[in-house]
């Protein structure tokens, strides 16, 4: 009896252990199932490189290049803001901050990570967007720049916490060795600690950027959602994610528009897959 | 009567060969002391006897190891471990009360009758010379006890499942001399009812309690004989050297 029970439990545990693989495959299958149908209407090249996204015109024009550029521009902006600040903050927390306030700073970072994206989007909309409009004298503050700033805040908790882990796990004797040679604390940090933690920091940056590319609600609320190829960071853009979120509600199930949105989903899935697998490789290079 | 028989026993952990062609017999109701320097394979051998090595990554065995004439690999593993108990090097109470620590194994083997469990707990604690010290506070955490008391608690916990063999893995390595002598006293009393295998770093302890003594070196069994013979007139030069403290 005990034997049988154990046998069943063992098998159940094994099956649940495989659940993550199962779900990743399931997600991929169901996205592809709906996405591939779009290529009856548009060739993969025209889909990825087409400059017009007019999904409800007759005939529909399904080129996602403007959306890719929108995502790239917002992501690039967010990366430029969040990477230096995030890494600097990680260094401060792990090396410089007095131990008394360290936990407090970490709690602040966790707090930022916990704020729902729709709340950040809302705050961005009512504060940041009017500022951008006024400062740059624009017709609208709903721009790629506003999106980049808000997204930078969503990337920073990821960058800070993973980079801090990487710095923390540098063996203590590296640091002691540098001190013993008479290096100052700051010299030790940028000559010894940062290089030693570099692969972890690269992973932190990649995961932060992954978070940005996949972010939906805040972007949709503050980037203005104009599906044209942007020529400046001060114009409205539309990202891949926002397009799905904004249009799926209106797309008819089984229409080419519906399939096209799934195809965008597959593009996002593949991007996040590549980012996560390579970040994981970087993280494991360390150990 | 012979409890354990090892014939040409070899074990590996990954690429590392921890035991080399060991032949040994362990008799019922004796105390067999196993001595040797660290990494000599003595603990690996001990952990063979209740198959705790199975938990180590990369473990493989070759040769034969029999318990009561049966291939150890064919015996139900939970049943084997119930019959062959283990006391570890450090006192390792479970994060439970004193009572629950001793009752743990009993309950895991399906004994649910409260009076039976209580009786077993009391009897085991008495055998381990701990009852008088803890009888008024059985429900406090086992971590509240001193190191020596914790180790005797671990002995009581092992006794409670009514084993036939008790394996001691350097049981006094973390203890002061007074606690050590209490543990040794318990061992000598237990000999009457149990077979005891004692792995120890302390040569004098082997001399004090062992009926027979085995000397392991680099995974090989160098010599096995009566304790008196080993300590007065060992056959192998290396045994003599180790006992006299020339290495180890």
């Amino acid at each position, binding site marked *: 009896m*005990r034997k049988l*029970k154990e046998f069943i*439990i063992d098998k*159940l545990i094994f099956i*649940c*252990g495989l*659940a*993550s*693989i199962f*779900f*990743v495959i*399931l*997600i991929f299958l*169901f996205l592809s199932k709906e996405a591939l149908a779009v290529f009856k209407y548009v060739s993969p090249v025209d889909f990825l490189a087409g400059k017009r996204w007019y999904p409800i015109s007759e005939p529909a024009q399904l080129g996602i290049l403007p959306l890719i550029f929108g995502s790239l521009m917002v992501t690039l902006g967010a990366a430029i803001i969040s990477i230096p*600040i*995030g890494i*600097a*903050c990680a260094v*401060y927390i792990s090396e410089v901050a007095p131990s008394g306030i360290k936990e407090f*700073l970490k709690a602040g970072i966790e*707090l930022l990570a*916990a*704020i*729902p*994206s729709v*709340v950040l*989007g809302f705050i961005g909309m009512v504060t940041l967007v009017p500022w951008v409009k006024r400062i740059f004298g624009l017709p609208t503050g709903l721009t790629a720049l506003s999106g980049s700033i808000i997204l930078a*805040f969503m990337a920073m908790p990821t960058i*800070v916490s993973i980079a801090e882990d990487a710095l923390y796990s540098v063996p203590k004797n590296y640091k002691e060795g540098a001190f013993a040679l008479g290096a100052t604390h700051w*010299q030790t*940090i940028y000559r010894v600690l940062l290089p030693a933690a570099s692969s972890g920091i690269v992973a932190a940056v990649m995961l932060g950027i992954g978070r940005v590319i*996949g972010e939906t*609600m805040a972007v949709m609320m503050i980037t203005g959602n104009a599906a044209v190829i942007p020529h400046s960071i001060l114009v409205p853009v539309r990202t891949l*994610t926002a397009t*799905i*979120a904004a249009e*799926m509600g209106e797309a008819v199930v089984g229409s080419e528009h519906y399939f096209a*949105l799934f195809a965008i989903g597959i593009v996002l*899935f593949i991007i*996040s*897959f590549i*980012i996560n*697998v390579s970040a*994981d490789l970087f993280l494991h290079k360390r150990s | 009567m012979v409890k354990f028989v090892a014939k040409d026993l070899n074990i590996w952990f990954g690429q590392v060969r921890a035991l080399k062609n060991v032949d040994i017999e362990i008799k019922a109701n004796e105390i067999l002391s196993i001595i040797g320097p660290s990494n000599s394979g003595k603990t690996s051998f001990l952990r063979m006897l*209740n198959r*705790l090595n199975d*938990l180590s*990554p990369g473990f493989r065995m070759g040769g034969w190891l029999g318990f009561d004439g049966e291939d150890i690999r064919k015996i139900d593993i*939970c*049943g084997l471990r*119930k019959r062959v108990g*283990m006391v*570890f090097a*450090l006192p*390792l109470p*479970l*994060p439970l009360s004193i009572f629950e620590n001793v009752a743990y*194994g009993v309950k*895991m083997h399906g004994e649910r009758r409260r009076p039976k469990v209580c009786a077993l707990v009391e009897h085991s604690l008495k055998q381990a010379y701990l009852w008088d010290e803890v009888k008024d506070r059985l429900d406090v955490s086992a971590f509240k006890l001193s190191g020596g008391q914790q180790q005797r608690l671990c002995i009581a*916990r092992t006794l409670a499942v009514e084993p036939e063999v008790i394996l001691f893995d350097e049981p006094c390595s973390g203890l002061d001399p007074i606690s050590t002598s209490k543990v040794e006293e318990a061992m000598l009393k237990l000999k009457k009812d149990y077979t005891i295998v004692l792995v120890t770093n302390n040569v004098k302890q082997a001399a004090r309690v062992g009926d027979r003594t085995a000397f392991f070196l680099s995974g090989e069994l160098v010599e096995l004989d009566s304790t008196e013979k080993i300590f007065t007139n060992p056959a192998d030069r290396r045994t003599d050297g180790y006992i006299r403290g020339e290495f180890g």
Partner: protein
Amino acid sequence: MSNTQRSQKIAFFFLFLATLLILVPVGLIVVVIVQKGLPAINWQFLSDIPRQGMRAGGIFPAIIGTFYLVFGAILFALPIGLLAAIYLSEYAGNNPLNRIIKLAIVNLAGVPSVVYGLFGLALFVVFLRFGASILSGSLTLGIMILPIIITTAREALESVPQSFREVSLSLGASKWQTIRHIVLPNAIPGILTGTILGLGRAAGETAPILFTVAAFYLPRLPKSIFDQVMALPYHLYVISTQVPNVEEKIRYGTALVLLSLVLFMNLVAIIIRYNFRKRKKW
């Protein structure tokens, strides 16, 4: 002061500045939402249905909807996540299969939330014909929080000392008995922490529920798991972008309720973790 010391001072100042640059806005965001949202909070706001095209009344259906969704998600994700964590911590060795499982978890954690929404739409709403419903939304959210639960539960299980397992096994307890009576009880605070963090995440997400459950306006409570519901994050999105002329107070009030809910869960998780570390017996 020597040159190197001066450059260290300057460098540390900039590091400090960067930290402020993150934390000050965070503080401001919380303060502003509390300050502007608090005046909206009263019993009516929390217990009434939205009225006048969501420009007045309360947000009760959205609060209830979020509770249903979060509860459903955890009901699905906790058992699977916990067992998966047990597999990884207690059964899995270092073989290629387990490497793939870990990679799958990392990937699951990185899939954009809107892609979860698409997946939920394709699988639960359309393929399994659950329609836009609590069931579809909960399952979608459940799969999304699965990696959080697996990762934290696994850490909690692995932090239980190996020696406890050895002791239990050496007494003849079986593997499952050891897990059930020794490993799990000592990992519960960590598992609880992960579960609550997952709850918080599920409560705050909008994109996965957009097409799987969320109702634009539905001033009644759901009767079955096949009903649609309103949800707090989606409601906040709707009244801040889709409905014109909503009083600022109501928007901030909704943001405050959502933020409080999420932060409260995180706070509880942090307190459990803190107490557990303090009282740790080994």
